[in-house]
């Protein structure tokens, strides 16, 4: 009662209190999500402290002895450290280098296409692979690349060559990863560019037509400049997640013969942590990735904010 009288005297907290009461049902329904976040998002952050401990399953997270940065120094000083970093960055940048230009090209081509059925069919077929899992993608890749039944090897055989086991070839594997990702995601990535193209003021095209600009010039001087900001944002976003090189894809496609060119930070964490039970070490590497990922994401968001005036969050 005393608290209430204070609230009544103070107009600011009075309206605050009324606003809280008015939204009480919202607090109630959102509290489930809140509890979910605490359990499923914040407890793992708490668990991450085992990166600094010599984790013993019986002792649990807080019972295991502290060992400082030993897990981190073990990782940084190991011979696979640079290999993992190199592979991870290579795949992220490689995919970006292929998928961004491909998506821009697809979006512009769809935007300029006057043949209705062609545009609709390509659009539908191009979005579709985004919804296929990498397990399914693996089967499709087998149908193309398998030495015994793959159509690519059939071609090679037709021309008198020896079939190649592409999936276990260290030279071919990086290309398979990058090109299969391009095949799967280009259509989906094009949506954001198409959205930007839809926003172009038609007056610009009318003016260009009056001035006698050719279609090529229209693309060069109106369409591409109009989506340039979106391209910059997409590239910055991808740079912000450069340490995520696509775990599901690599995990599904790789095998022992190609580990040296295929292993990325995430696949390594899985093998060390889950298969070898080196929880502390794997967590340390995960934490290393998480911290750098955070810095990259915040950095790229800063650049996006400076460039467009709008951040992601």
């Amino acid at each position, binding site marked *: 009662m005393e608290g209430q009288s204070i609230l009544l005297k103070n107009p600011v907290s009075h309206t605050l209190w009324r*606003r*809280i009461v*008015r939204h009480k049902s*919202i*607090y109630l*329904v*959102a509290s*489930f*999500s*809140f509890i979910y*976040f605490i*359990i*499923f998002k914040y407890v*793992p*952050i708490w668990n*991450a402290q085992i990166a600094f401990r010599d984790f013993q399953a019986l002792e649990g997270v807080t019972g295991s002895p502290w060992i400082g940065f030993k897990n981190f120094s073990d990782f940084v000083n190991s011979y696979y450290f640079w290999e993992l970093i190199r592979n991870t960055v290579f795949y992220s940048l490689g995919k970006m280098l292929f998928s961004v230009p491909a998506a821009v090209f*697809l979006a512009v*081509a769809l935007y*300029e*296409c006057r043949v209705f059925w*062609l545009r609709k069919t*390509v659009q*539908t*077929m*191009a*979005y*579709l692979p985004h*919804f*296929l*899992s990498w*397990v*399914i993608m693996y*089967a*499709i*890749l*087998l*149908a*193309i690349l398998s030495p*015994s039944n*793959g159509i690519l090897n*059939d071609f090679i055989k037709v021309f008198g060559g020896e079939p190649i086991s592409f999936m276990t070839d260290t030279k071919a594997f990086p290309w398979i990863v990058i090109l299969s990702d391009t*095949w799967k995601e280009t259509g989906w990535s094009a*949506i*954001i560019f198409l*959205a930007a193209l*839809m*926003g172009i003021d038609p007056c610009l095209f009318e003016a260009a037509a009056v001035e006698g600009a*050719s*279609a*090529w010039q229209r693309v060069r001087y109106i369409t591409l400049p109009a989506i340039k900001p979106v391209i910059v944002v997409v590239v910055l976003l991808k740079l912000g997640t450069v340490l995520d090189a696509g775990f*599901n894809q690599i995990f*599904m496609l790789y095998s022992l013969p190609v580990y040296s060119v295929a292993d990325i930070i995430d696949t390594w964490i899985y093998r060390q942590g889950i298969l070898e039970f080196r929880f502390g070490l794997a*967590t340390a*590497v*995960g934490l290393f*990735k*998480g911290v750098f990922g*955070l810095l990259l994401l915040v950095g790229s968001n800063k650049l996006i904010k400076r460039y467009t005036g*709008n*951040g992601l969050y």
Partner: protein
Amino acid sequence: MTSTIKLTRSDRVFHIFIDAALALILALLIIPIWSTLTLSFQPNDFIGSALDGMILPPWKWSTAAYKALLGHRSFLSAAGNSFRIFFEGVITALFFTVPLAYALSIKTLPGRKLLYGIVLVPYLFNPGLVPNYLLVTKLSLTNTLAAVFLPGAVSVYNTLIMKSFFEELPEELKESARIDGASELTVLLKIILPLSKPILLTIGLYYGVHFWNDFFNAMLYINDAKLQPLPILLRNILLSSGMNEYVEANAFGEAPIYAIKAASVFLAAIPMLVAYPFIQRYFVKGTMLGSIKG
């Protein structure tokens, strides 16, 4: 309108170039899918390469691989598990995502900034695989279907897309309901949700596809063969060579193993392929909204 304007030669070349490029892209998209599809229909006694199989007339196709899979107990149980994961997962995900997104969209909600911060931190900082693994095992979720969808039941990205959709809805609608004495929860249930069909379908589909496709959580947390979802079974079939346990047990003996492999992925993709055309118009709308608002 364009036909009345006489196209110059360079413009005609431009359009031929665009159409040819799109036709090429279409071929590149279709050929891999077609080659997998025809592989799945290859008869046991087929002689010739996979290339020959691609032009085999449909009346010579064999459905033995599909019959073998659909008649097999482990395939049906895996499909059942996947459907359960899909529906239970989507409902759980929307149950957690919708109120959160709505709360974040109310500008006057006291504590909104704090809630936003709580949501954003895990988005920016991911503690990694092992800390999550420890949590799920600690909660005794291993060997439950919930282990597949609960850890990913709220995606911050999806929540932010939904939040920006709610923010776009006209404020007057909510105001008029409030003046009529509706509580905030009534506003959400009676005014907001009926208007949010596109975004609910879009986000529901995102979650659903994610849960349907997930093999990693299932691999981590499900050892019980009876609880295996489709992606795990597919993975086992795909990674098995001719000497695998499936063939040894003569489980799928009627059809060649490569046809079984190809057929299994099509069966697993069918629910996605059937739902896809219906939801396509919604997700394009929803995604565009998300991408413009950022």
